[in-house]
């Protein structure tokens, strides 16, 4: 083949390949190896209204642009609990709020976390990536520079919300019943009685919204009712019909390793999780949410406030489940130490955030506090394994009846 013909063939291949190479992979928005750029276009009046009414859940229309992909007719609203404010808006992006079925990166909604309450700015992303490393379901996360109408709003964490896209990616099917737990009052999985509206208040369904409540909520009610049975065979038989006990133990153990203080054994009761029941099953599993209260305290016990969660407390009274709990924490500790994975992940993400933009002066903490807190997180990543391995060893020596729970 002549050189000329070869060059022509190569050019033809390149021309044909160009559209493929240039096509944006929407999944890259969750690529945490680089800082993403997200642009929102909103009407100026709506933006003023959003800032003035940051404490409301009103949706505003917007266009969402990532690279060369523009998603029109999306809904944007203020979000958050303690992090909600009008200075650096926490935002929820609903791709299907105005156009039924509209998706981006296979998800119907993402959260732009304003990193308001975490001076390190990386706890959430480090924790979620560690949960995924441990083989459990976790939201995909990355960091992004966010612009509204061309104005830079700061660096945000891009968080995938548990929804049908998340379920399909993780479980292959999205037809089950998904509930988001809402903190309304201190709650510990005690029985809620016969009224379904009590369950609807705490557990907002995020799928099957248009169906009648009874068939959607009754298995969840049965799970919580089963937890009232006396610890022992009766409890075990009843609860296993409605709860994937090993998954719940693994979920709690990973949280315990990460030192979560506002989660399954939170300081104000259980918090920050979703519950999912696959289609055709009555057994529920737990999905993590909002992990910016992890890695605060190096020496927090792996049994801290276990008695604030009656489900976990009852489960750990069973020797095999207690053993699984300790085994999972041990596995977490070893995994975190392996190639210094946790430390490296925290360092890498902190460097990524710092490289994204000059430090955001709208945040309620200064650069010095941020740097100091990054050091705390890295210290946690370096030394947490050692602490929990000692506690696991001690717990294994203790009899099942005496082991627990302060």
């Amino acid at each position, binding site marked *: 083949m002549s050189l000329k013909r070869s060059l022509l063939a190569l050019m033809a291949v390149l021309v044909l390949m160009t559209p493929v190479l240039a096509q944006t992979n929407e999944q890259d928005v969750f690529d945490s190896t680089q800082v993403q750029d997200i642009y929102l276009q909103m*009407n*100026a*009046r709506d933006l003023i209204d959003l800032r003035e009414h940051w404490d409301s859940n009103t949706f505003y*229309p917007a*266009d969402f642009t990532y690279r060369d992909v523009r998603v*029109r*007719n999306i809904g944007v609203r203020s979000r958050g609990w303690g992090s909600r404010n009008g200075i650096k808006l926490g935002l929820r992006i609903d791709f299907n709020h*105005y*156009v039924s079925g509209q998706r981006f990166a296979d998800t119907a909604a993402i959260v732009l976390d304003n990193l308001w309450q975490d001076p390190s700015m990386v706890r959430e992303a480090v924790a979620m990536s560690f949960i995924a490393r441990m083989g459990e379901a976790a939201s995909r996360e990355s960091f992004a520079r966010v612009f509204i109408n061309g104005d830079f709003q700061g660096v945000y964490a891009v968080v995938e919300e548990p929804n049908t896209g998340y379920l399909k990616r993780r479980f292959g099917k999205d037809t089950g019943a998904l509930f988001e737990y809402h903190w309304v009052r201190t709650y510990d999985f005690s029985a809620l009685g016969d009224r379904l509206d009590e369950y609807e208040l705490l557990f907002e369904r995020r799928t099957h919204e248009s169906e009648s409540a009874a068939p959607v909520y009754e298995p969840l009610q049965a799970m919580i009712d089963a937890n009232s049975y006396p610890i022992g065979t009766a409890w075990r038989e009843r609860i296993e019909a409605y709860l994937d006990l090993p998954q719940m133990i693994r979920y709690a153990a990973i949280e315990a390793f990460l030192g979560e203080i506002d989660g399954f054994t939170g300081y104000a009761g259980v918090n920050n999780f979703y519950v999912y029941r696959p289609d055709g099953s009555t057994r529920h599993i737990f999905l993590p949410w909002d992990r910016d209260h992890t890695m605060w305290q190096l020496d927090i016990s792996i049994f801290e406030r276990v008695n604030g969660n009656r489900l976990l407390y009852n489960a750990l009274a069973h020797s095999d489940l207690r053993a699984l709990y300790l085994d999972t924490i041990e596995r977490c500790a070893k995994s975190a130490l392996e190639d210094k994975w946790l430390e490296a992940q925290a360092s890498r993400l902190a460097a990524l955030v710092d490289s994204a933009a000059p430090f955001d002066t709208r945040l309620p903490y200064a650069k010095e506090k941020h740097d100091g807190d990054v050091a705390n997180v890295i210290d946690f990543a370096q030394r947490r394994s050692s602490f929990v391995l000692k506690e696991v060893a001690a717990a294994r020596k203790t009899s099942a009846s005496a082991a627990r729970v302060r």
Partner: protein
Amino acid sequence: MGAAVVTRRIVVSFAAVALMSAVTVRPASAEDDPFSFRLGDAIRLALDARMAIDVRGSGDSADLNTDTTRRRIGVDGSIGKRVDFAIERELDGDHPWRDIYGDVRLQKTLRLRAGQFKVPFSLEETTGVKHLDFVDRSLAATQLAPGRDVGVMVHGRVWRKRFEYEGGVFRRDGDGPSLSHPERTYGATTTAGRLSMEPFASAKRSIGDLHVAFAATTSPLQEGISNLRGRTASGDRFFPATYWAKGRRQRTGIEARWRPGPFSVTAEYMRVVDQRRGQALDGSDLAALTASGWYIAGVWRVPRALGPGGHSRLELTSRVERLAFGSGGDGVMSLNPRSDRVVSADDRAITLGFNWWVTHYAKVLVNAVHERVQPAGSSSSTARWTPVFSVQLGL
């Protein structure tokens, strides 16, 4: 509402009709109207009072809803040969005052009306309830035509009364600010005009009755959520008040009526366009929000009177109509309040019925309304029948 309550109200309605039938007969002329009075030579007063009891199906439910409506009293009359007036008030409701106006003849072909009265748009909307052929006005007239408002209007008839003109300025287009939805916008100072013609008035054949009119209104729209919205005959929402608007609201309408012998045919088309200036995400203009509707209605007055006295009559009625919402624009149809291309929606209805004029003062109307509704944002349409029954009493 319980069946017993509905039954009781129907029985009460019939009893009232029977009572009215027994005590009154139609006067031979307006001068003989027992509810019309003269004060000296200059002042004439005519009392008016009316009420209706409506019973209607409620959407998909088998329940019937009864409602006592149109409880009104009023007086109209004249002072001398140049001044007419009308006052009418609801007995309840948030906005009880209806007509309050005076009408002065300045010249033979020029009159001036001032006060609160109906904006001159839509034949059906400006027809008094006593003369309506159906329990409810058409969807278009009810939801697209402006209502009453405070204003000043000149009007008169010219060229042997073949042409009638009406032109006025009103405070609003009938809708005021909503307390429950302060974000909604409505037509502000409204300029309205209507030109009616009876082009064959001199003809001795039935074509001489033909009435044709064109009407238009224009109003500025403050920035806000347009209050254009669609409801079915049974009151269900099928197009929400969702979209931002700003600029002008313009209405155009055409109407026609022909009454050959015992038949009458009425038709109207009307269209409302709300501009959406500066309402796009980037501050540019969006395609205008449009609502349009039409109807064709026919009535056959059974020539033979019913019962003794010859005052009881029967009419057979039918109406075909449509009310639709949408916009131009590009892109995906969306409920996004700033979408260039809004989701379309429409309601097509057929009404069949009959009216029984028991006496001049009592009327029973029975309608069956079949609707096929394509709601905004829904991929499928729904169809259903709604029965509507009304007993109307009036002086």
